[in-house]
């Protein structure tokens, strides 16, 4: 068991390393100048500018590079933390459902529709500090839960694949959300399609006015602890895990699996529902998404990286938002498009979830350990990890 965990950690590390390497190669190729100069000189130039680009990519979120030297990048840091907030929350939602070995591709729609409906409350409910904020978030959670109950019900009662239904509902949620904003909440004074502004008192308190560092991160971390507690320390969470581990066994021990499947989908829907509105309450102050921002999909990546453990979810989310902010900063200083992050994400997911990736190596090290403990007289190799 212990060797297994250590191995998972290695695998994640190696996957991230390979992804960064592939990214470097792509940046290098993109940096090769098209001018007509000697091959070696070309390579030298590409090498220099690729290194420069990667310097921004890997450190940009924390370091501001000046001619005089490096300084702390406050705006990058705050952006890093702020961007992690919604994806921590969707990551938690997806990890809950994954624990029960169910699929939830619907987090995206739950988040979008939750934010759109809660926007109405944030605009029209009188701005009372704390109370109205809480009400807005609870509205979004209720909408998310309600919307998640559709695939939950169809899976639990009708045994319809929740994957297809939640996928279809994403589109329905997107169009419904857009319709609500467009028809009822639109700010007609604004040039683009955005909602009216939220009540000032309803907005989340700020830690830093200039870069709008809001307290969303503490809400997200609070939710992390809560979800961790529910999943790991309560009977309900244990039942969810039992269903995921072995549904037949769970049923024989008297758990109503349809009921649990429904409940976990709805609970995760409530969590996911709050992801979008918290960002709007903290940062933008109005609804402004014309495209679904993709936080639900990010949640799937994060839950996968965190191995469905709620406590690891913030780490995975912070990692993802770190490379994203770094990529944006790289895009500002070089001609490398920040979408390169998508390529890295894909490589990381593929390798991290590949059960058989490095499995031979794992098996060999386990075998070696086993034979060594058997004979116990083989000399220890140099640099060997025991």
């Amino acid at each position, binding site marked *: 068991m212990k060797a297994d965990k250590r191995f998972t950690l290695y695998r994640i590390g190696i996957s991230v390393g390979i992804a960064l390497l592939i990214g470097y190669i792509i940046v290098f190729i993109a940096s090769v100048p098209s001018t007509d100069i000697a091959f070696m000189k070309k390579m030298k130039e590409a090498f220099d500018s690729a290194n420069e680009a990667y310097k921004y990519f890997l450190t940009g979120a924390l370091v501001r590079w000046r001619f005089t030297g490096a300084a702390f990048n406050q705006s990058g840091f705050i952006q890093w933390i702020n961007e992690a907030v919604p994806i921590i929350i969707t990551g938690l939602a997806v990890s809950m459902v994954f624990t029960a070995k169910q699929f939830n591709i619907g987090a995206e729609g739950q988040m979008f529709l939750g934010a759109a409906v809660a926007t109405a409350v944030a605009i029209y409910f009188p701005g009372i500090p704390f109370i109205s904020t809480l009400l807005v978030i609870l509205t979004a959670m209720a909408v998310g839960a309600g919307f998640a109950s559709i695939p939950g019900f*169809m899976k*639990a*009662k009708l045994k319809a694949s*929740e994957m297809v239904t939640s996928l279809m509902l994403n589109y329905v949620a997107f169009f419904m959300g857009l*319709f609500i904003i*467009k028809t009822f909440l639109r700010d007609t004074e604004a040039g683009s399609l955005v909602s009216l502004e939220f009540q000032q008192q309803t907005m989340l308190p700020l830690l830093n006015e200039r870069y709008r560092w809001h307290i969303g991160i503490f809400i997200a971390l609070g939710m992390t602890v809560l979800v961790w507690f529910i999943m790991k320390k309560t009977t309900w969470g244990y039942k969810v895990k039992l269903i995921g581990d072995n549904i037949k066994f769970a049923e024989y021990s008297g758990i109503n699996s349809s009921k649990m499947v429904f409940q976990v989908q709805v609970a995760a829907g409530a969590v996911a529902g709050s992801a979008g509105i918290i960002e709007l309450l903290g940062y933008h102050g109005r609804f402004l998404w014309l495209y679904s921002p993709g936080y639900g999909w990010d949640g799937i990546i994060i839950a996968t990286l965190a191995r469905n453990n709620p406590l690891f979810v913030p780490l995975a989310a912070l990692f993802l938002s770190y490379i994203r902010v770094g990529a944006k900063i790289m895009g500002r200083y070089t001609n490398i498009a920040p*979408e390169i992050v998508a*390529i890295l994400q894909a490589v990381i*997911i593929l390798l991290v979830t590949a059960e058989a990736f490095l499995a031979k190596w794992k098996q060999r090290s386990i075998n070696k350990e086993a034979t060594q403990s058997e004979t116990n007289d083989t000399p220890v190799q140099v640099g060997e990890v025991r």
Partner: protein
Amino acid sequence: MNEMFQGILSWDFIASGIRVTTPILLAALGALIAESAGTPNIALEGIMLISAFIGVIVSGFTGSLWLAIIFGVIVGTLMAAILAYFALKLKTDIILAAIALNIFASGGTIFFLAMLTGDKGSSASVNSLLIPNVTIPIIDKIPILGDILSGHHSITYVAIVLIFVVQYMMYKTPLGLRIRAVGENPDAAESVGISVVKTRFIALMLSGFLASLGGLFLSMGYVSWFARDMTAGRGWIALAAQALGGLNAFGVAAGSFLFGFTEAVSYSLQIFDIPYEFTQSLPFIITIIVLGIYAWRKVKASGKLNVSNSSVGPTEK
């Protein structure tokens, strides 16, 4: 009201419905083959997008239509092969692997578009080619029939032919039999000497091949450029069409036409002040309802046969 029916029933409308259906139909046939093998391919969306991109870029930079088609198809099939390799050899969860490929396709095409053309939105600056339409000699002279049957895009005709090819392959050839056997009961198939991994590999690559034709149609027929995320959910709609049609190519084709024509209707309905958002979500709502009814009937049927069966399988596939 009268106007509306005129709009819906015109021959232009039917032609537009067929055009909208083509990419969905091709991807849905791919979904059918993959699903039959027991390995659902939800990377169709990304495969279509990549092939659409490759078609435009290759034709724009080489000026050769054939090279564009060949590369578009090869890259699309290769994407499916990567999915198959990770899912079957490296034991990645096939759904997660497909999500990874979709993320790669969506971001990667934008990245490489920006790298090659300097534009992140569309390939407007690239002088890419179109795959031509086909006029059927004699039929196109017949008044109504000619409008419906002739003058479509070459890939549309290929797609129609492929409905029959896929149906024949799945139910009349040894390969189809093996694919279905592997999907229905992999252990039994293995015990009679069918290689499960190899068969699923082939099925996934075939599904990638079909989806890549759909992608080429999008950027080299439906429109004449590549735009970011231009597949716009067609890969997912194809999965829904497959879910509606089951494992029968004609059923899947019917499902695809239903979606294609619903979308075409939604364009016509926009004239009548019906909000665009409602008509756009119509295909998805229909799918959910139909899936619900299917599942309900299945539950009822199995309830009659076996009352004690109350298990809810966690993502059986």
